[in-house]
């Protein structure tokens, strides 16, 4: 089964897509990349992921898998060499817990900070920083979450090392203060200097331009008004 053709439907700036790219590259799996315009979704995407209509989508032979962390675990289980998740059940549970935590408490709040303005931006950034305080304790004393080599949690949180600084710049906010969070900052640096990660990142200038426009468009959208109400004024 592992020998069947692999394709990845992605979007050039999506941190979720890059989780899958990194997992595939770390395992040395050949794949065909198909760029999707998420603002003008193709019939292929709508057919392959009718529930969420989002990238990434992995196609492996006749199998279709969506949701980035589901895909990464699928890759890890289908190609078991260079394991990404730890072997020990407790360590695996910890990796899953912290991946979920970072997604709900850091990624969502940092994204809100990017799209918000004024006091709401400050509130979102403060919540994001509180999440980083917790992550700092987990990564303290470690080179990488996976130990000596990149693991599942490094992949799931990898966006912090590259997307978050871009969002901080675009949003004029500081979430990762290197003095307050030395272990996290060091981990970010280690990750960016890892060949597989460092060689597989979108162009920064293009990202800045993209997120500047995205921030403006989302701030003015109805979606944002609902989300802000839900997350910042529960």
């Amino acid at each position, binding site marked *: 089964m592992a020998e069947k053709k692999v394709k990845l439907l992605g979007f050039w700036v999506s941190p979720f897509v890059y989780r899958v790219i990194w997992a595939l590259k770390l395992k040395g799996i050949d794949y065909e990349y198909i760029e999707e315009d998420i603002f003008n979704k193709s019939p292929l995407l709508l057919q392959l992921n009718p529930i969420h209509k989002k990238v990434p989508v992995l196609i*492996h032979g006749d199998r279709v*898998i969506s949701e980035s962390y589901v895909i990464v*675990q699928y890759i890890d*289980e289908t190609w078991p060499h260079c394991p990404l998740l730890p072997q020990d059940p*407790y360590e*695996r*549970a910890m990796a899953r*817990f912290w991946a*979920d935590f970072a997604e709900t408490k850091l990624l969502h709040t940092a994204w809100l900070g990017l799209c918000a303005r004024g006091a709401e931006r400050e509130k979102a950034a403060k919540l994001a920083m509180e999440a980083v305080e917790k992550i700092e304790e987990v990564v303290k004393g470690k080179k990488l979450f996976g130990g000596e080599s990149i693991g599942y949690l490094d992949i799931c949180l990898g966006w912090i090392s590259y997307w978050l600084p871009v969002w901080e710049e675009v949003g004029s906010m500081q979430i990762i203060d290197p003095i307050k969070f030395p272990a996290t900052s060091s981990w970010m640096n280690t990750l960016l200097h890892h060949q597989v990660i460092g060689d597989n990142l979108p162009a920064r200038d293009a990202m800045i331009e993209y997120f500047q426009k995205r921030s403006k468009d989302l701030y003015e959208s109805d979606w944002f008004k609902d989300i802000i109400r839900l997350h910042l004024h529960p």
Partner: protein
Amino acid sequence: MAGSEVKVLGTWASPFALRVHIALGIKSVKYEWVEENLEAKSQLLLESNPINKQVPVLIHHHKPICESLAILQYIDEAWPSAPSILPSDPYHRAVARFWAAYIDHKWFTWLKGVASAEGAEAKKAALDRVREGLVVVEEAFGKCSKGKDFFSGDRIGYLDIVLGCFLGWLYVAEKRNDVKLLDEEKMPGLAAWAIKFCLDGAVKDVMPDKDELLDYANMVFQAMAKAKLNAPPNY
């Protein structure tokens, strides 16, 4: 490896804690259940889950594991002997994880949205969304079960537990809003599945009585409405 003291911190009404009850039952693991009072959380809970301070928490070999989906997978891996909770094939595991995420992040959010919807129109829209979500899951049930009784086939597994834990609260939403959500006509597969799930050996003795849950929900919502009336404006 496994067989040392196992403790579960939970509440009788929590659907997420129910998942842990059921999973340990499938594996025939003996455990101590600690009923938490969420108004006065125990020191053990606060120490075991300092991040979220929520139930459920599974404590095994004195190590706490939090988040029900992480706990379910842990139980499957720490007690690897049959019966298994997750499928063995990576693709079927991916399908199960995908639908678990849909149920938790989309569908359950919509179910919670029924309670917080204000006004008849918003309530109706919220209820419709829950029903539509069940129609989507009905289709998933058809593909996953392949004509058998459960999402996992002949025996209950991961996805059965993930959705089944909400059946009590679904009943609560139906009764409180005087509607049918799990409709035998629109979702015949799920309707039949729900009955079999509740009768399963690992479920029937631990699932809370649905009318007791309804009484509890009525009490909680009444208290919340009262508190809202008395609360100062949130500016």
